[in-house]
């Protein structure tokens, strides 16, 4: 019971934090804005709660009363702030909104619902059959959670070089969150890591669907949802309880918020920075993401757009990233034993390793799905039939996000080339997960660049949301245009 309360409090904490510095403002559709904030709040809440727990743990103050007391206090203050400010009418969004003009959106929603329910049912069955998760879950992530939830100074064992085959320098977000739930509940159980894994999966899915809905409309969002649920390797890794899905969540959050920062009044860049920082606090690959996105965003912003507003946005991004940066520095330089990330530098001169990595990449790309329903086939169908149309306001964030993700993936490939372990083994055991980490962000970029389904159905100019909702005449004309197009 206390475990469930602690998870709920973490989500509430995240949701209310997001509400306090609203990243989406009054962008339509509202259901997508609420879903986006709820999804983002899930990951941010778990991240922030894990940081608070770790600080309590290393200072010897972690106890169920302290964990729940701090969470309840923070939630109460944030809820009070929310109720106080929500009575003020929000400033209307300056962004345009597209009408939900595709008349078959309901059919897409039906297909998405069916795919979601069937997939979730199977994932739950898999989690019940293997509640301890896959190899890394019990040799690394949940093992470290047990140390962190242990009495006295046992948290130090989570960073001990004596642990064979684990990575004592690995970031602690996932382990610390699971440990927090165990500590709050007063004991170790198998449910907490399973619920954590499913919460991140659900939040990832909701974040992608809601972000695409906010940027490109409901029909495109449902298509994005169908494509990500066709990524069978993503489904397979969900009950494994690895940190790759949480990492993919934070990558996607950062990328989506960079887009939303272009069209929404709010604090999207702050949350983008926070997501990038939390990515670095989730897995070592996240450090590469944090560095790449900061460098690309700051360089392009300061080089191309030297406006005051752009510099302020860059400042918000840096401010958001600072907790993750500080935690990562603390872990790498003070807590964990030193690790040399460049130990395999000499491998860089071996050309055959590059070929091996490239082959491994294409092989693992094929393993994202299976047969005719492979997600790449789905994307090809959409690309060929709907074609591309990047809105002017999304060109800049598209450049930043694409450059960052390409750099991140090149860093991954470089790390693989330099690995001191067997390259074959490394490619077999990790490359599919490295692809998965960037896959949801890639899908977001794809759907932002893809022509909106509603544009095809009703090729009319975007209409201000206030007009859309208040003028039946406009809705009538749009419906008429839709009917006329049926015969095209």
């Amino acid at each position: 019971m206390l475990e469930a309360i602690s998870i709920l409090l973490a989500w509430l904490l995240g949701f209310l934090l997001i509400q306090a510095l609203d990243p989406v403002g009054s962008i339509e559709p509202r259901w997508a804005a609420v879903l986006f904030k709820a999804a983002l709040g899930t990951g941010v809440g778990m991240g922030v709660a894990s940081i608070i727990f770790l600080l309590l743990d290393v200072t010897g103050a972690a106890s169920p009363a302290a964990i729940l007391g701090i969470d309840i206090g923070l939630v109460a203050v944030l809820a009070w702030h929310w109720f106080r400010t929500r009575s003020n009418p929000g400033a209307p969004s300056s962004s345009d909104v597209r009408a939900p003009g595709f008349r078959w959106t309901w059919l897409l929603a039906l297909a998405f619902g069916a795919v979601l329910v069937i997939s979730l049912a199977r994932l739950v069955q898999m989690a019940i059959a293997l509640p301890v998760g896959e190899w890394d879950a019990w040799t690394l992530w949940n093992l470290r959670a047990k140390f962190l939830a242990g009495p006295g100074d046992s948290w130090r064992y989570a960073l001990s070089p004596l642990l064979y085959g684990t990575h004592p320098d690995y970031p602690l977000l996932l382990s610390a969150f699971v440990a927090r739930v165990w500590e709050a509940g007063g004991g170790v159980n198998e449910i907490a890591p399973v619920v954590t894994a499913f919460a991140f999966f659900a939040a990832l899915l909701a974040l992608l669907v809601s972000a695409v809905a906010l940027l490109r409309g409901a029909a495109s969002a449902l298509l994005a949802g169908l494509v990500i649920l066709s990524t069978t390797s993503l489904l397979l890794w969900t009950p494994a309880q690895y940190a790759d899905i949480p990492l993919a969540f934070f990558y996607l959050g950062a990328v989506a918020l960079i887009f939303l920062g272009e069209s929404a009044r709010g604090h999207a860049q702050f949350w983008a920075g926070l997501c990038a920082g939390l990515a670095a606090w989730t897995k070592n690959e996240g450090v590469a993401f944090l560095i790449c996105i900061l460098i690309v965003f700051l360089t392009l912003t300061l080089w191309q757009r030297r406006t005051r507003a752009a510099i302020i946005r860059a400042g918000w991004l840096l401010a958001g990233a600072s907790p993750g940066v500080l935690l990562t520095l603390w872990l790498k330089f003070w807590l964990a034993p030193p690790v040399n990330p460049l130990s395999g530098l000499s491998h860089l001169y071996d050309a055959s390793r590059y070929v091996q990595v490239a082959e491994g990449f294409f092989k693992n790309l094929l393993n994202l799905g299976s047969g005719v329903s492979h997600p790449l086939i789905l994307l090809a169908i959409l690309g060929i039939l709907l074609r591309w149309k990047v809105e002017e306001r999304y060109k800049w964030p598209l450049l930043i996000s694409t450059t960052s993700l390409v750099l991140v993936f090149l860093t991954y490939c470089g790390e693989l080339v330099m690995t001191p372990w067997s390259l074959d083994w490394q490619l077999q055991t990790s490359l599919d997960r490295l692809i998965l980490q960037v896959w949801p962000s890639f899908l977001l970029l794809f759907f932002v660049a893809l022509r909106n389904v509603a544009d095809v159905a009703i090729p009319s100019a975007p209409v201000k949301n206030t007009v859309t909702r208040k003028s039946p005449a406009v809705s009538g004309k749009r419906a008429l245009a839709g009917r006329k197009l049926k015969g095209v």
Partner: protein
Amino acid sequence: MQQPSSSQALAACAAVALLALWSTVSFRSATEELTGPNADVYKIGEQAARFQELASALPATGMVGYVSDVPDSQTLGAILRDGAQYALAPRLVNEQGLKAGAEWTIGNFSKPLDVTQFGKDRGLTLVRDFGNGVVLYRNGAR
């Protein structure tokens, strides 16, 4: 670039929806085995029960030594050691526990053998054999 027609949009959506449904059905049939009793191939779920009695005989935290009849270099050895570590955490289970001065050492065996002699050969005194390959030793030098 010519704008696609609404029938193209409908075709794209229908194809994606149908293929996604097909993908889900395929996923269900491909993962049938992962929902059965053989999903836990390393039998990690059974280790908590296997080590339960031994765990209650150990201090709640601290380092404990580890010995086994299967070397860590073998996959089975690594599974045995990591399974024991997970079951006994937050205690740190380590082969170097003996050298580090740990009072207790656990034995984790894959087959029946003379556990008393196995311990003596390594300077360990048998405290209790819990059965099922789980043994508790005390560091004999102490």
